[in-house]
């Protein structure tokens, strides 16, 4: 299968590979997929607690080139967005940007799931912190 230039670029020069310590305030972590399915994505966001803006994002992905590219692109798009804006990123946006063929659409779905999981984790932790601070 031939890859689009953008997939090749993200594969060769992945943006934002790495990890934040999970417990740092403002960090939300999403871990989605399953090893037996051949795809696992870990996507993390680091939110500025004062502004609610995602200041940084990191990923690590086990999967094919399209999965790596989808998560790399997701981290690029997340940076600078507010948490609410980030929730609006759709897998179809990733498909269009990377020109993924039908057989690779599940990679973009997984990236969207990873974004959602990271946002949920961030919100749950923030809520817990507020509750913790109040008590």
């Amino acid at each position, binding site marked *: *299968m031939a*890859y689009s230039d953008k997939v*090749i670029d993200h*594969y060769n020069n*992945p943006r934002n*590979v790495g*990890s934040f310590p999970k417990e740092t305030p403002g960090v939300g972590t999403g*871990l*989605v*997929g*399953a*090893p*037996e*399915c*051949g*795809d*696992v*994505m*870990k996507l993390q966001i680091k939110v500025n607690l004062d502004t609610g803006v995602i200041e940084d994002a990191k*990923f*690590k*992905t*086990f*999967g*094919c*080139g*399209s*999965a*790596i590219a989808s998560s790399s692109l997701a981290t690029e798009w997340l940076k600078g967005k507010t948490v609410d804006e980030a929730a609006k990123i759709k897998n179809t946006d990733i498909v269009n940007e990377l020109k993924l063929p039908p*057989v*690779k659409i*599940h990679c973009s779905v997984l990236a969207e799931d990873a974004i959602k999981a990271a946002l949920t984790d961030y919100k749950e932790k923030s809520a817990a912190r507020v509750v913790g601070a109040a008590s």
Partner: protein
Amino acid sequence: MALKFPIFMDAQSTTPVDPRVLDVMLPYFTERFGHPASRNHSFGWEAENAVDRAREQIASLIGARDPKEIIFTSGGTESINLALKGVAEMYREKGNHIVTTAIEQRAGLDVCKRLERQGFEVAYVPVGADGLIDVDLIRRAITDKTILISVMFANNEIGTIQDISSVGKLAKEKGILFHTDATQAVGKVPVNVEAMGVDLLSCTAHLIYGSKGVGALYVRRKAPRVRLAPMIDGGGHERGMRSGTLPVPLIVGFGRASEICREVMPEESARLAKMRDRLQDAILSSVDEAYLNGHPERRLPHNLNISFAYVEGESVLMGLNKESALASGSACTSATLEPSYVIAALGASTELAHSSIRFSLHRFTTGEEVEYVGRRTIEVVQRLREMSPLYELAKEGVDIKSIHWKAE
């Protein structure tokens, strides 16, 4: 010598035509273009003689007693189809049961599935962790309705070579026909249908430096005389088992390719095995949690199949494909999204089945190429592990199996 890119190390998918093979083929496209079934003029006689010479060369490579036992087909897939369907139809009254293995190549498995839809019953014997079939399991799978045992000689992914002689002996003892898919083995390791008790054998030219588009089915004529219902009806060529005008140039090349393989096999297999072993040692000694798939000794000399834990196969190939051509059992390299059923049949975790890479060497592979591909593979795997969440978890001491994954 400077390396020439891309390096081809996927010789179990196909091989280049040996220039010596091409040389003998060429005149049969132009001057000697006769139809081998034209019995009344010299063009036909010339073509028929050339085809018969090729039959002898192929018969000699596989130890067949009589060149007439070689039936030409379009390739391995057709040979397997003809063997299985031809026996099933011809011997249906004797029984409707077939014994085969879980790791046959797709043609074998898909023909069996079709036969099952037509009322046949098929037993798929599992393999051990090393890829070897336990002949005793075949014995136990046999019923009084079994008409055929079909076991591949050497596996296309892991290269594991089965104990064909023991299966042949068992088949003889039970009076059951025995077919072996030897597409990967013929020309690479000694094959002898007489000594091994094989009744039907499938092989193909393009894996032994001949052309794509031609294969052969060995069909035993004596003790027992095997009969087959043809799949293609027509002029009654090939003893009525496979009608259609023979592709004479391709067949001439197949013959010459077989002759060369027979001559060079001892030297070539030793040379390829040595390079393969070097590649294997280089990779296994520098990458942790890299696992050899298949039997370490009983395998094809040019095959190496390794699973790299925590990285996905296609992503490894993507890192190499500008400079070298390899194969993966990863789902992502195929349209099915299912990982290698062969690696999975070894009992490895599905994750490792997604992570397998097959290196297959060939006649023209050089030591420099092997050294280069080995070094680059190690680099790519290490780079991908740096971005693998599974590798990170493993390094933190987390048991990946303990995580509750939400499988799609």
